[in-house]
Every structure is written in C-alpha cells, then in structure tokens.
C-alpha cells in the first residue's frame, strides 16, 4: 500500500497543485475570498440570529462560527469529492491511473481551505475571550475523523454521480436539510431529552458538538461522543471503499 502510494506520489502532488491553482485562479484575492465568504455568512447569521437564539448562549458568535466552520468544510469536501470522478473522466478513461487519487487530492485542497478558516476561527475566539488550553490539542481527533468521513462519503457520492447525473441537485437539497438539523444557529437545550439524542444520528452534528465542547466549554467530551466520531468515519470509509472497489472498472461504461 505504502509502496503503491510512493509510486503515485508525484502524480498526487501534481493533482493537489492543480486543484489548488484552479480553485484560487492563482490570485491572492482568490485565497482571501475563500475565507471571506464564510465570514460573510457568519456576519449575516450573527446579525439575524443573535436576537432570536443568542441571548442565552454564551459566546454565541463562536458557537455559530464553530457550526459554520465544520459544516462548510463538510459541504465543500463532499461536493468536491462527488465531482472528482466525472471531472477527471477525460484522464482516467485514457490513462491508467488509480481513480481514488482524484478524490484524495480534492480532499486535500478542501482541508487546506478548512485550515485557513480555522486560523481565522481561533483569532475570533481569542478576541471573544476564549481561553486557549492544552485541551485544544484534542481538536485533532474530530478533525481526523471528519477527514476520513468526508473521504468515505466522497467515494460513495462520486460513484453515484457517475451513475446518476442529477445527484448534484439531490445532494444540494440533502445538505440544505442536513444544515437545519445540525444545530448550527440554535442550541438543542430546548428540546426534550429524547429528541436531543436524535441529533447524534447526524454525524456532522457530532463533529460540531465536539468542537464546541472543547472551544467554548473547555471540557473534553465524553467517551460516547468519541465513539460516535470514529464510528461514523469508519462506516463511511468502509462502505465507500467497498463501493468504489466494486465499480472501479465499471465507471468507464458510464462516461
């Protein structure tokens, strides 16, 4: 496996470069824009929702930011992942290269983008009087799980998108619905306890919650959340890679 990766390392690096260049159109403004757009979203959301939900929630802006941060990374990575096969069809139908490289390179550029926004997030947190403790290191755990989750889901989505070309619209609707049940701008405290537990069925909510516990509450979440994080990641990557392997040589007929 490692040897195989080594063999394709050069190609992988070139693909990452290509995705990054295409994304930002080689301008500094392009990079600024990718940070600016989540900030703009944050600004509007905090203007509107602080009045509705934010009065009782401490550090509401950071609460909102954490939700947006995680959710937009999830959305960007899976959307890009979904496209990765169809967009590179001209390449892998003509040259023999492992197809998962396209998905991975797209995920790397999404992750870098997430990293940039994460820095801005920490700056905001510092201004908001959040105390930075050693516990912040634990943030690596949900990030790692989310990366695996996104890759796994990307596998599934990219394969589906090859077969069904309206996947993009369906997935857009799905992510929109998912956003509303991810508790991005409201808190779940007002729900009865039975309903509240239902939120854990949503993987994105679990990752967001982990973030908020560490950053806002300053505590390391319990074992259950840790298990949920890794469980969702494993399910996604397992189904995704199985599905990919199964259809690896069939994609060709559909493109």
């Amino acid at each position: 496996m490692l040897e195989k990766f080594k063999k394709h390392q050069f190609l992988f690096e070139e693909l990452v470069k290509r995705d990054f260049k295409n994304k930002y159109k080689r301008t500094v403004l392009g990079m600024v824009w990718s940070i600016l757009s989540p900030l703009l979203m944050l600004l509007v959301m905090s203007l509107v929702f602080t009045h509705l939900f934010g009065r009782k929630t401490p550090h509401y802006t950071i609460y909102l930011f954490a939700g947006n941060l995680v959710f937009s990374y999830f959305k960007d990575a899976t959307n890009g992942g979904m496209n990765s096969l169809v967009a590179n069809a001209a390449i892998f139908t003509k040259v023999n290269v492992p197809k998962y490289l396209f998905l991975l390179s797209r995920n790397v550029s999404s992750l870098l983008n997430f990293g940039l926004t994460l820095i801005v997030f920490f700056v905001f947190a510092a201004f908001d009087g959040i105390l930075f403790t050693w516990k912040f290191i634990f943030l690596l755990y949900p990030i790692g799980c989310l990366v695996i989750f996104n890759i796994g889901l990307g596998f599934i989505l990219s394969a589906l998108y090859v077969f069904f070309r309206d996947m993009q619209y369906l997935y857009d609707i799905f992510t929109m619905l998912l956003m509303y049940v991810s508790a991005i701008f409201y808190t779940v405290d007002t729900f009865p306890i039975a309903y509240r537990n239902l939120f854990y069925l949503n993987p994105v909510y679990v990752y967001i919650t982990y973030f908020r516990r560490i950053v806002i509450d300053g505590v390391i979440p319990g074992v259950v959340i840790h298990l949920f994080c890794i469980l969702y990641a494993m399910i996604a990557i397992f189904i995704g890679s199985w599905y990919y392997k199964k259809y690896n040589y069939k994609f060709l007929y559909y493109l």
Partner: protein
Amino acid sequence: MIIDIKDLSIRYIMGDFKDIGLKEYIVRKIKGDFTVREFWAVDGVTFSLEKGDMLGIVGTNGAGKSTLLKVISGIMRPTKGEVRVEGNVSALLELASGFDGDLTVRENTYLRGAMLGYTRDFMNKKYNEIIAFAELEEFQDRPFKQLSSGMKSRLAFSIACLVKPDILILDEVLSVGDGGFRKKSEDKMMEIIHGGATTILVSHSLDQIRRLCNKVLWLDKGKQVAFGETASICDKYKEFIEKKKITKK
C-alpha cells in the same frame, strides 16, 4: 514475450444508462423503458509480440481497436481470456485529452508526466528536451487552452516518446501536426523501436503502417480477421475496404 494475449474477449454494455438522472432512471424502470444492450467489443483475439516489434492495428470504425488498447494499457479489464504485459506501458489514447486548459504548458507537462508514471527528478531532467522537441519554447508559461490543437498533440507526443517506455501505445497519433513534425515524430518512433521498445500503432493510414510496422492485426467487429506479415495483410485489407466502397455505391 512482451505482450501475450490469449483468446481475449471484452463485453461492452451500452444503452439508456448513460447521462441519466436518478429520477429518470426510476421513471424508466417503472415504465419498462430501460434497455441495456450487451455486445462483444473484442471477441476472441489472440496474438503475441516480442521485444522490438511494431504492431499496426487496422480495422473500420467500431472494430474494437480502442477497446483492445484500453485493456492492454490496464484501463479496462478483460471479460474473458488472458492478457500478459511485461514492462511499463506508455499509452496515448486520444492525445490531446486529459490536459487542463487553465494550467500552463509547463504545469501540464509535469502533470502528464506524472500520469504516465515518471518521477519528478526524471521530469526535471527531461523537461527542456520535451519542450524543445515539441517546439513550444515560447509557450511554456502560457495557459494550455491558448495552444492550437496541433501544438497540443505535439506536446502530448513529445512527453510520451522522450522517455523510452518498454511498451508504447499510439492511437491515431502520428497523424498530428504539420508535415515537418510528422516526419520528425516518425523518426522518433523508429528510434524508440530500435531502442528495443515494443510499439502498437493504430492508424487509418495504410501507407504509414506499411512503412513502420513489422506485424499487423486486422480486426472487424471485434473479431480477429488476421494477424501476421504486414504486406500480405495490408493488401487484403485494402481489397476489403475497396470492395466495401463498391458495395456501398
């Protein structure tokens, strides 16, 4: 033997499943309006090549030439039969595709090199030679989409050929570029073959095949019509094509 193919068959599927949406898929399934047609794109092909051979593949459109090449280059898997390929394959199927229009010529050269399995060091060493051979020195930092189609093909050819692959696959490649470049690329091909590479060439130009190849494979609708000596098969194929023209008239 470098390439050994025994009774190779590839089943291809075609039908309504292409470019279809989930909604349309469901509707068609319910109406029973969903048909998938299977056919054998390549059916029982057997041949083998030695080191230094140059094989020409002839056949009319839809004879299964491209499908066969896709199997040899590892993009597709055979449905039946055996394929044994020894050494690294540098395949050029439809030359100019797979480049990224927004990247520069230089970036595309590296990307393509990476796709063909070269290392970065190797590309660093060969880069200038590739650009010089493609005669694109002045265009190195231009976006790729600004090149003419001839230039694009020239670049693709140069990247694939300047690296001494064990097996080189060329699909309608030598018909690119102007006269001068065509001569140059043929010379390059001969150099590669004399260097011991095994080459497979698909071309509609019989003259070219007569000139370059020492073996010919003739496919028709997936079936192997003949394999062997260049001159005799080319003569028969020419006869076949002319007969076809007459019957059409």
